[in-house]
């Protein structure tokens, strides 16, 4: 029952976002199409009226047809997986997305796992060893990264490690002289190019994970079963990992999907700073070229990705935490 409700909510969210973006883009200034028509008219030596008609049929934007008809047609296309048309490239947005999405998902997943893993370990340590130098250090670090917007962290990394020290490349996802495929030079180049973007997200989110884990672990430490485990004479190390850690990590799992969503939103700025050809970079490209069709497709895809991540966590969570399962 719970699962069905969640799925319904996810579908409703995607539908609402899709409909709102349709309405917003409908309100877009028409001069975009007019400029395209002018360009085509010049390039092909045809009259502006003919070119304008061509643009309208190409994009499927025909103001003479009722709004309602166009909406159904567009929604039908969306259901079949067609995210719309790029005004700039004049091809389906899908073709661009399937090139760009793997890069974004790759960088975000590695960064999420790294920041979560390191953050959780640090949080567990400072929860147990309070009043050592590590606790104020990590709390201070968390405040500092909280105060630094992610794109400034990215910019600092770019200036220091790519432009000045030249340890890492400043643009692209791999060395263009290599042939993409499953070979070692290519994979190394991919990791070399992804290091700074991954580092930017990881440094930015690590402190928050550590503080969240600390808070969660401190409350678990006060539970009776920890005292009982100690009384049974279990090793402190085992108590820390198997008893405190496992229980304290549970509330953080729901935060994973949220963190993924936040990073996805930030990817526009971070991928732009590193010229990394993922979803975010294309969003900035669409902004520069007033490509509302591409922006709309990218926004819907981003929503689908985040809603799916949320849904997976929601459905997996009861499986991880038997207490939730019991409540039904």
């Amino acid at each position, binding site marked *: 029952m719970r699962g069905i409700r969640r799925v319904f*909510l996810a579908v409703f969210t995607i539908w609402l976002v899709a409909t709102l973006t349709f309405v917003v883009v409908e309100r877009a200034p028409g001069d975009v199409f007019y400029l395209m028509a002018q360009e085509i008219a010049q390039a092909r030596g045809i009259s502006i009226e003919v070119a304008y008609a061509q643009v309208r049929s190409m994009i499927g934007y025909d103001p003479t047809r009722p709004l309602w008809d166009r909406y159904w047609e567009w929604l039908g296309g969306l259901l079949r997986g067609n995210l719309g048309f790029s005004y700039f490239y004049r091809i389906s947005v899908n073709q661009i997305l399937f090139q760009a999405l793997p890069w974004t998902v790759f960088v975000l997943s590695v960064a999420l796992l790294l920041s979560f893993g390191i953050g959780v370990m640090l949080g567990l340590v400072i929860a147990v060893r309070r009043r050592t130098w590590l606790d104020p250090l990590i709390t201070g670090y968390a405040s*500092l990264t909280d105060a630094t917007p992610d794109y400034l962290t990215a910019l600092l990394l770019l200036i220091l490690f790519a432009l000045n020290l030249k340890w890492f490349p400043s643009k692209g996802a791999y060395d263009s002289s290599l042939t993409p495929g499953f070979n070692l030079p290519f994979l190394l180049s991919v990791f070399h190019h992804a290091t700074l973007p991954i580092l930017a997200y990881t440094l930015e989110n690590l402190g928050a994970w550590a503080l969240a884990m600390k808070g969660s672990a401190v409350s678990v430490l006060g539970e009776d079963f920890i005292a009982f485990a100690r009384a049974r004479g279990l090793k402190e190390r085992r108590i820390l990992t198997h008893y405190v850690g496992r229980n304290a990590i549970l509330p953080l799992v729901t935060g994973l999907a949220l963190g993924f969503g936040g990073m996805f939103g*930030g990817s526009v*700025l971070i991928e732009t700073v590193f010229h990394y050809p993922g979803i975010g970079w294309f969003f900035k490209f669409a902004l520069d070229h007033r490509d509302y069709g591409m*922006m709309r497709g990218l926004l819907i895809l*981003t929503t689908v990705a985040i*809603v799916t991540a949320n849904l997976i966590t929601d459905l997996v969570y009861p499986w991880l935490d038997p207490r939730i399962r019991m409540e039904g």
Partner: protein
Amino acid sequence: MGAFLSDLLHALQGNRRAAVGGLILAGYLLAALLGPALIPLDPTMKYAERFRPPSLAHPLGTDYAGRDVLAQIVHGSRDVLAIAVLTALFTTAMAVGIGALSGYSGGALDALLMLLTNIQLTVPAVPVYLLIGSVFQVRDPLGFAALISLWMWGPLARAVRSQILSLKEREFIEAARVLGLGTSHILLRELFPNLTPFVVIHFIRIMRDAITASVGLIFLGLAPFSPTNWGTMLNLAVFQTGAIYIPNALHYVLAPMAVIVLFQLGAIFFAHGLDEILNPRLRAPS
């Protein structure tokens, strides 16, 4: 409100972190209000003096066209802070309205408003801002503040709702209901005063988020309506003038970054300190 402020000032004296944060924020406010009158902005381009390092005449050096960086930062602060304050006002009004209505009414309206809140929290803000901002062509701080508050009210609305839910079960609200006082009286005169400290802390957080978002969007190139906005300065340094590739121009890139981070730190300290002052459970045992 007056009593609240004098209590606040008194409590600030006892909390060093809140006082430091408050001082930093007050400094920014002064810079935005008085700074532009004290430090004139000379827009003439003097390419012979480009990217000069910090000196007595130019405490933060000069930009790609030989203009004083400090003057740009000061003049930009007015714009940046105006967006932050306006966004916080709009967002707080929307969030308190939605949260209070949701928590107080319950039932279907509550379910609907919480559904919308969930959607706001799920869909990432930056792409939403970029799409709406470029279609409707935002041109001034007011429009910018309206754009950002459109997708920022979720966390506060949810928090206000849960506060209202717990407050409305308390005895003094029961008493007001038994006395036959109207819904608007109960909301405005009985419930809202209890939310004030809590809303003030969120107000500061929203100002921070508004600066992060607005500077970021202008940095990306959405609506470069002001030449001295810190986001415009970063945009020029990174995308237009190639200043990030020039080691001598480092001060020009770092100046807007440093003022953003310092503002954020001030706001974090102030909000944390306020939380300790206003929330007795957080106060360290003395």
